[in-house]
């Protein structure tokens, strides 16, 4: 057989391959543009050694805070071997920004069955924004190996229906306040 015919058949296949890859890239770029979808890429540094002493991530500041515009910010710490706080209330169907960092080693954050997912790297604040549409408790395990207690490091994300969302006077919400 003519070698040229072989080369031609392979070039045709290259076009098929290129079309398949391009199709995927087009879908990704189009949906990214339409919905502002991005992996969490919040390059914000913070000193892991002094988190508990001052600033945004002291123990008293952790938890769920409703902002003036109705959005919600959740601040939490991933540390060996717990998330602090251990139960996070969020309102159903509203934008929620989760800000999380680590004072010690690398951890991972995921709300099972949702797109809420980020690495937690000491030295950086990870921030992700998403919405939760399914009311009830969701398991929130640590998804990156952080030491021998890793397996038992999990918290609960509680998606609260609008009618049960009653934060306190300062806009703070805790799982104890859910009726």
């Amino acid at each position, binding site marked *: 057989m003519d070698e040229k015919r072989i080369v031609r058949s392979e070039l045709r296949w290259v076009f098929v391959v290129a079309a398949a890859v391009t199709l995927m890239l087009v879908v990704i770029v189009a949906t990214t543009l339409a919905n502002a979808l991005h992996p969490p890429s919040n390059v914000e540094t913070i000193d892991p050694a002094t988190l508990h002493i001052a600033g945004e991530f002291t123990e008293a500041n952790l938890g769920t805070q409703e902002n003036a515009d109705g959005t919600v910010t959740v601040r939490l710490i991933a540390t060996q071997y717990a998330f602090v706080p251990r139960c996070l209330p969020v309102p159903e169907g509203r934008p929620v920004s989760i800000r999380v960092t680590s*004072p010690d080693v690398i951890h991972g954050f995921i709300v099972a069955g949702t797109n809420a997912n980020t690495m937690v790297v000491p030295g950086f604040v990870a*921030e992700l924004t998403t919405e939760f549409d399914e009311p009830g408790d969701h398991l929130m395990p640590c998804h990156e190996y952080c030491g021998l207690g890793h397996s038992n490091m999990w918290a609960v994300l509680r998606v609260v229906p609008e009618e049960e969302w009653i934060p306190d006077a300062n806009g703070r919400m805790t799982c104890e306040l859910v009726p």
Partner: protein
Amino acid sequence: MSNGESPRPSDQDAVNRRWRLWASTGAGAIVVVAIVIGFFVISSRGEGGVTGALGLDHVHETPEAVAQTAAGALPTDVAWTAATLGLLEDADPEAGRAIAVQTCASCHGEAGIAVAAAFPNLAGQPATAIFKQLSDYASGHRVSPMMAAMAQGLTAAQMADLAVHFAAETPAESIVDANPPAAIVQLVVNGDPARGLPPCSACHSARGGPVGTPPLGGQPAAYLEQQLTAFAAGERGNDIYGLMRAVAGMLTPAEIAQLAAYYGN
């Protein structure tokens, strides 16, 4: 099968040049397209343009409401900064021993083995752990009138000297319980996934663990039980991010007693 004519050398050069040109152009074009989309197109939605895509403009303004925390609400003043760790590295165990003989020995023993079950053994504890507790006593984050009086008389450097002195001493022998309850062994080596309780041994191990964590083997059981109970009740709160308060709060009083017996002498 035909092998085809082998190209002549000059043809070879031409073929080669074409390959080089197209390979470089192809690779370059793909990179350019990726850069244009990644840094200019998709970053226009949600990522704040080129600088956002580079990760350069994420300066977070902490809202006023959460910017400050009252000093009294903090668990400790100690942080494992380079300065703190440097203090411990430069500390002098001999100077520490001199202070220990005068100040600490009557309760904790000159070599760090306590004289009574109400006091912890200090021998062989990590220097970071001893230093943190001394600092917390001095600042009032860990409450003990007697220890506050002792610690407030020390400079940070002296606390570091004491810490490295006791850290270098031989720890008390751990009396191993021949037949510990199986449920307690489970808590120690596996924790309890249902309660989110990590294994005690994940942190409290002679083999290493989070900075500033004491190993527990060989401590007086009475002291361990007293401290766990204090954590559970919130009477002791100098644990960073409330980790021990949370863990102890999930344990039953019986488990606290058995864990103290398991680790303690």
